[in-house]
């Protein structure tokens, strides 16, 4: 038999109530029995006496009129009192007047009493009462009461006690059932809910509260605890979800290993092994052995515990595939950047060298008499040098180190000039359709970048139409009012020239369309696209204060619309000199700053040959000194942009403060992104790209001094 405290509450309560009932009953019963035993005799005497009084009252008239028959009939009413066995009425003389016997066993009296009073004799109470009228005793009434045996009385109590006990036990059983309903069942439900939650970890479970007592409060508190746990779990889940993590548990390393790409399994095993030895957490990244053929990377940071071959693993698993890809892309772009730096550096030095070569070849050519056989050789050197210049230009283009130089651009002209190249770029099953509005407004953008933009869009359209289709290029004008600009905070109201490039390709979902301008976002397989094409377009348009948007429908194609702000006023004067091989003369003083001596010497020789007064300096600092040492006026500063120490821009800033009317011309064979981004150079800043010819230099200087370019 189980110990009491392990028994169900129902049994305990039933047992307690039962025991309490029996003990209570015992005491109550004992008290009643003792009281009854003590008071039994007096009670019987009283009872019998009052009975005798009633009988006597009716017997007196019978005695008065000497009617024993009536007296006997009167006594016969004692039949209703079976415990009275014998009764008699005697005359004072002692003779029997009337008698009554309950049955044949009591036909005779047990005692013959002649005086009033009572006595107990042989299990009987014999009581005698005088019957008198007007103080005259007419006779004596004697009643004999058969006392029940003690055992019979106890048996009566026993039956009573058993009945009450039965009732109490029934009540105890009913009570315990009620208790089960009000106590045991709710507790059982709580326990069941706890077990269920432990098994399923589902904190949404709630236990019904059907009372407001302690158990109700417990249930309420339990539910509140579940609510708090649920919230906490939810927060954790959301946090993990936001971090794209999930908690993972594995019973053994082998269970985990199955998810690991076979080639990475050794690594994972070793890492966890070290972690176990060192008693520290581990942090490992591996490829997963996903069944869908897509290689995913996972990072597992966790803790291994336990001995032997089956350590318990608990950790946070994170899908780091995207991060891995970004890392790869970053590496790729860093590689590109490094190549660009290398190419740009080479191009920079080459441009200096080519400037000198082209310049000196020009001098030689001029020095040679007409018809000299060497002229052809020199021309050949010049052509080779120019081809080399083109090559450096391509290098710079590849490295995206080209100078941003916004100019007035006529969209139609750009489209027209780039169209042959597009034709080569696109496969034959793609038809190019142009609809160019001849009244399209002039806009302001770097010519090269604008063409690059068109090319990038065309390439994008081509990739969207692997089975051919139509590429439409359209130009036009539009005025964006408040409505459009309110929807897009990036756009200012105003007049815009619009270039629309649409394809009949696969189209994009809204989700992809929303991200299409993000850097490194690509839907193309790795290696087939940099993810920078449309991002570059976005950057180019934004740099030109324009706006680009895309509308697309899956299966129907995409429409890219480019808004470029209209350039106010007339078309600006072109800085590009005519390719007339004439060196215009001048007499002004020019300060020529260039760290490359060959370029500097060549430039000075050109300008001096044209009649200018030329001061020279090989750095910004030296140039400042020369300027300050010079008493006369300096009309113009020709300076390289990138120099060791003070940059061309810094020099211009200082010198222009000191000499407000100074004209400036920048020369550079290499431009840093930082300069472009800071916007040093725009279309108002005269700029001459290396390599340049002597004629080009002289003509540009002359134009600036004549007022074609404003002072910087």
């Amino acid at each position, binding site marked *: 038999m189980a110990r009491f405290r392990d028994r169900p509450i129902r049994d305990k309560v039933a047992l307690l109530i039962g025991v309490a009932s029996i003990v209570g009953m015992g005491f109550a019963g004992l008290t009643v029995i003792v009281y009854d035993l003590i008071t039994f005799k007096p009670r019987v005497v009283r009872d019998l006496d009052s009975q005798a009084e009633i009988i006597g009252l009716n017997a007196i*008239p019978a005695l008065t009129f000497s009617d024993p028959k009536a007296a006997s009939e009167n006594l016969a009413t004692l039949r209703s009192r079976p415990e009275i066995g014998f009764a008699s009425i005697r005359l004072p003389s002692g003779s029997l007047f009337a008698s009554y016997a309950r049955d044949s066993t009591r036909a005779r009296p047990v005692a013959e009493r002649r005086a009033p009073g009572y006595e107990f004799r042989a299990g009987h109470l014999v009581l005698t009462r005088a019957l008198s009228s007007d103080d*005259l005793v007419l006779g004596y009434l004697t009643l004999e009461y058969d006392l029940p045996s003690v055992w019979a009385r106890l048996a009566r109590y026993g039956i009573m006690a058993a009945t009450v006990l039965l009732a109490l036990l029934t009540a105890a059983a009913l009570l315990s059932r009620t208790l089960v309903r009000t106590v045991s069942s709710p507790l059982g439900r709580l326990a069941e809910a706890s077990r269920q939650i432990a098994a399923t970890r589902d904190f949404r479970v709630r236990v019904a509260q059907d009372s407001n007592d302690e158990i109700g409060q417990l249930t309420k508190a339990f539910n509140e605890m579940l609510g708090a746990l649920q919230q906490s779990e939810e927060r954790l889940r959301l946090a993990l979800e936001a971090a794209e993590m999930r908690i993972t548990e594995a019973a053994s390393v082998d269970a985990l290993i199955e998810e690991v790409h076979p080639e990475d399994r050794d690594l994972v095993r070793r890492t966890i092994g070290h972690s176990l030895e060192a008693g520290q957490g581990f942090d490992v990244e591996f490829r997963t052995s996903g069944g869908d053929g897509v290689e995913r990377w996972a990072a597992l940071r966790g803790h291994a515990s336990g001995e032997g071959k089956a350590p318990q693993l608990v950790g946070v698993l994170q899908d780091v595939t995207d991060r891995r890809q970004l890392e790869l892309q970053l590496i790729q772009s860093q590689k590109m950047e490094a190549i660009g730096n290398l190419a740009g550096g080479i191009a920079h030095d080459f441009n200096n060298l080519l400037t000198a070569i082209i310049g000196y070849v020009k001098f030689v050519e001029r020095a040679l008499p007409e018809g000299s056989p060497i002229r052809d050789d020199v021309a050949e050197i010049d052509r080779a040098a120019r081809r080399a210049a083109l090559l450096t230009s391509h290098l710079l283009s590849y490295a995206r180190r080209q100078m941003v130089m916004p100019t007035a651009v006529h969209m139609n002209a750009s489209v027209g000039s780039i169209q042959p190249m597009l034709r080569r770029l696109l496969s034959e099953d793609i038809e190019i359709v142009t609809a160019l509005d001849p009244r399209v407004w002039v806009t302001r953008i770097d010519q090269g970048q604008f063409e690059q933009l068109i090319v990038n869009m065309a390439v994008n359209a081509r990739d969207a139409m692997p089975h051919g289709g139509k590429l439409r290029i359209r130009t036009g004008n539009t005025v964006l009012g408040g409505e459009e600009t309110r929807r897009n905070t990036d756009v200012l109201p105003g007049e815009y020239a619009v270039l629309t490039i649409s394809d009949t390709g696969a189209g994009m979902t809204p989700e992809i369309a929303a991200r299409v301008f993000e850097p490194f976002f690509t839907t193309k397989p790795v290696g087939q696209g940099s993810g920078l094409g449309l991002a570059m377009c976005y950057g180019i348009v934004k740099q030109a204060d324009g706006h680009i948007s895309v509308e697309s429908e899956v299966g129907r194609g995409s429409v890219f619309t480019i808004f470029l702000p209209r350039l106010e006023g007339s078309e600006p004067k072109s800085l590009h000199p005519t390719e007339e091989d004439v060196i215009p003369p001048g007499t002004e003083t020019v300060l020529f700053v260039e760290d490359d001596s060959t370029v500097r010497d060549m430039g000075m020789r050109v300008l001096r040959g044209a009649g200018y007064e030329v001061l020279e300096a090989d750095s910004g600092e030296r140039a400042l000194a020369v300027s300050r040492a010079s008493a006369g006026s300096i009309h113009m500063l020709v300076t390289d942009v990138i120099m060791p120490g003070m940059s061309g821009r810094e020099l211009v800033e200082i010198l222009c403060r000191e000499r407000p009317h100074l004209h400036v011309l920048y020369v550079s064979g290499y431009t840093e992104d930082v300069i472009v981004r800071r916007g040093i150079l725009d279309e108002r800043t005269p700029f001459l790209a290396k390599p340049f010819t002597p004629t080009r230099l002289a003509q540009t200087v002359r134009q600036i001094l004549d007022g074609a370019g404003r002072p910087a």
Partner: protein
Amino acid sequence: MAAATRAEAQAPARADSASLEYEVKAAYLLNFTRYVEWPPSAFPRQDSPLVICVIGPDPFRTILERTVEGKAADGHPIAIQRAALASDTRGCHMAFIASGSQDVRIPQSDQLEGAVLTIGEGRGFARRGGMIGLVIMDATVRFEINLDAVRGAGLQVSSRLLALATRVYSTEAGE
């Protein structure tokens, strides 16, 4: 103190002695006063005597006087008068008409003046309009009651007395 009402006096009555018989009957007369209630108007004062009249030739001689000597009925002293005629019951509460009376006519209750309990001898007394008739049965003095006559005189008789009567004449009881 005399024991005139003792039932054991019956035993000598069976000896067919006239004096014994009238001792019992005298005791009965006294006893009847305890089971019969007169209207308050029958007694002018609280201590007015209850008068027992013996009509006709007196069979009691001195027995009745001895029997009631010193007795009282509900506080009233008991007086005995003798009269010759049954019609002459003025001032009587109880009238014993001896069987040897010259006047064979039994006084009816509506002919009586006041509440007078008439007691006679023989079976015909109660049946013919008398109130209590004393009869001899098995050598014992018993009595019959004419309840209608008793009530007609404005008297109340105890149910205990009725229970002891050998016969009760009553139109209500259908007898």
